[in-house]
């Protein structure tokens, strides 16, 4: 169990194992700084070890695992349907995307049909959840940049969305409301009315957000040309989601590998070419509008019917032997679930591909040579959810 060998080459250095290992390659007269695991702008328990020359970052290394919960092992030990409760907690900000990934992986493996109405409900709820996630990111990111007020405005809208989503899901944050073959509850006419009211309200709010923040000269100065990701770099690191779309690649799983009924909707994929933090910011803000457009179309075309396939399995059940991979577009990028089944009532292996992990792995390269303030801006622009990284 003792990981550090007895003859520790690092002994005599300060800090824990990671800091000692990091300090081995330190330059002379540089400052080793631990940003996190408790730091206001690492959004949870991410720890980044920085080697600094004054305010400039020479080198950095993220240290993960502070909120590791071994979701993959839990997946092997519980029935298929029980795993939905975990899916609400991997990425708590876009829980429904993970719900969908898990439902989709199992449905693909077992060949479970999902009724059209359930598909539409899934789309509406997931997109509402995506807006919620982007709004929280917006507020928290500006908090990182020193503007305290926007997060409160974001929460005004978030509250409304959570009120709407609460009806079909019963929760406000850690949703676990998808099931194999459908969703747990139907949506009512009141839900439709409130969702439409939200669609009517949001453009005005977004205009206010842009007035307050996006046009601000200080913000533009902070974000433009900071943390530029080019396409080759994004490919080598497997970056997805707004990080990739900020680099000029129109790659969105909803369009590239359409799942559910996303092929029935007409929506544009927001893309920015600059690749800097401002581009990622802009992509996320535009995605809120895209999601609103999708919700509007889904509400218009909402078919009648079951919200749950009557033939779908309930309780503990056994899918056929086999494997399946299912990808969905989460708020942070491509969520993928690989599932291998051995024909028992628990999965043989569940592998969760979390977009935040791949996106964060860009950080050491992006942060090199930037100021500490830039590092905060870059870290925020990657939109990290630490529980999703550590899983």
């Amino acid at each position, binding site marked *: 169990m003792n990981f550090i060998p007895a003859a520790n080459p690092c002994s005599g250095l300060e800090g824990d194992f990671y800091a000692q290992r990091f300090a081995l390659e330190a330059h002379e007269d540089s400052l080793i*700084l631990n940003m996190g695991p408790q730091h206001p702008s690492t959004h949870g328990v991410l720890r980044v070890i920085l080697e600094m020359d004054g305010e400039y970052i020479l080198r950095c290394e993220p240290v993960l695992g502070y909120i590791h919960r071994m979701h993959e092992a839990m997946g092997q030990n519980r029935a298929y349907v029980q795993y939905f409760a975990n899916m609400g907690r991997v990425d708590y900000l876009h829980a429904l995307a993970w719900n969908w990934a898990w439902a989709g992986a199992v449905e693909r493996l077992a060949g479970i049909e999902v009724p059209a109405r359930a598909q539409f409900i899934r789309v509406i709820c997931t997109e509402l959840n995506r807006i919620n996630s982007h709004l929280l990111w917006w507020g928290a990111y500006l908090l990182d*940049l*020193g*503007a305290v007020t926007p997060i409160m405005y974001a929460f005004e809208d978030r509250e409304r969305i959570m009120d709407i989503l609460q009806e079909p899901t019963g929760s406000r944050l850690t949703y676990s409301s998808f099931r194999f073959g459908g969703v747990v509850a139907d949506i009512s006419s009141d839900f439709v009315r409130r969702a439409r009211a939200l669609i009517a309200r949001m453009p005005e709010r977004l205009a206010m957000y842009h007035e307050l923040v996006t046009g601000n000269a200080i913000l533009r100065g902070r974000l433009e040309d900071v943390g530029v990701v080019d396409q080759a770099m994004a490919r080598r690191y497997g970056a997805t989601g707004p990080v990739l779309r900020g680099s000029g690649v129109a790659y969105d799983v909803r369009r590239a590998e359409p799942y559910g009924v996303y092929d029935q909707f007409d929506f544009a994929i927001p893309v920015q070419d600059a690749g800097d933090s401002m581009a990622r910011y802009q992509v996320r803000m535009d995605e809120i509008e895209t999601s609103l457009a999708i919700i509007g179309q889904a509400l218009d075309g909402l078919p009648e019917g079951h919200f749950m396939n009557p033939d779908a399995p309930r309780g503990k059940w056994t899918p056929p032997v086999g494997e399946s991979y299912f990808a969905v577009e989460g708020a942070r990028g491509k969520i993928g679930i690989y599932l291998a089944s051995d024909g028992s009532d628990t999965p043989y292996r569940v592998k969760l591909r979390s977009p935040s992990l791949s996106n964060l792995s860009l950080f050491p390269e992006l942060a090199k040579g930037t100021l500490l*303030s830039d590092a905060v801006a870059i870290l925020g622009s990657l939109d990290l959810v630490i529980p999703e990284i550590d899983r």
Partner: protein
Amino acid sequence: MTLESIPDELIRLAVALVALMAFIAANGIMLLYVERKVAGHVQRRPGPFEVGPHGLFQALADAGKLVGKQLSTPAGADPLLFWIAPLMAFMPVPLMFIAVPFGQNLWGLETNLGIVLILSFAGFNVLALCLAGWASNNKWSLLGAARAVAQAVAYEIPLLLSVLAVALMTGSLDLRVIVAHQGGWPWQWNVAVQPLAFFIYFVCSVAETNRAPFDLPEAESELTAGVHTEYSGMGNGIIFLAEYANMLVVSCVATVLFLGGFNGPILPGPWWFLAKMYLLVTLIIFMRWTYPRVRFDQLLNLSWRWLTPLALANLLLTAFFAKLWGGA
């Protein structure tokens, strides 16, 4: 030694200092409340509401809490420097007020070098922050201290230059003379003649007091709390009080230099003075709750590439016109 042998000036000074201390303490507490209320209403929530009517006594309760807290010195810190720093931050503040004319004959010290006195004591603040950051034995505090020093050095220059423009125009460093030089109506104020100097002064004063968007030495989301990180209880409280008091000082000076001081129609002078001062303070508070924080290099660029050249140009023009029209 009889009572008569004490010079009148000394008595006046002592009384003024005591009164000013009370003024600063009361204002510090009130500004804390106002700031939180403004923040609350800007963010569409009530702000402090539970202690007293509309949370009026919240700041008092907070002060009581701070006083009651244990003062802890971090391991490896230099205790003398560490504890002298908050005192040093607060000590010069009452001295800065003594030359400020709050109204007709309402000042602590008769001096014809009022501006010089204020500006020289203002320099103490950065020394205090530097000591606090250094003595804390904390890397974040140290970074905050380094930022504080660089920022103060960069912004003192355009600040001085913009003040100098007013002094050139008036031909005096005496705050009372400068006030007397202006009238009661806005078009008679110096700001009407020197809008650029006022703008530069205002930006620099926000930066000098380390208020958002120039709060880099504190920079909550970058440096956790910068120089404040290791301070507990009243150590933290005094540094905060000094910060609010500094905000008051720069607003007072701006009122005197640019907004006509205590001059104003109908109402007695001190009311006008306070009204103008609080207006500026409110503006500074609003700015804090609106803008993101600037980056360090942008902060320095703003000073060296914009404010300093503009202030120099402004000073040159002022000198030229002052000479042309025979000065004051």
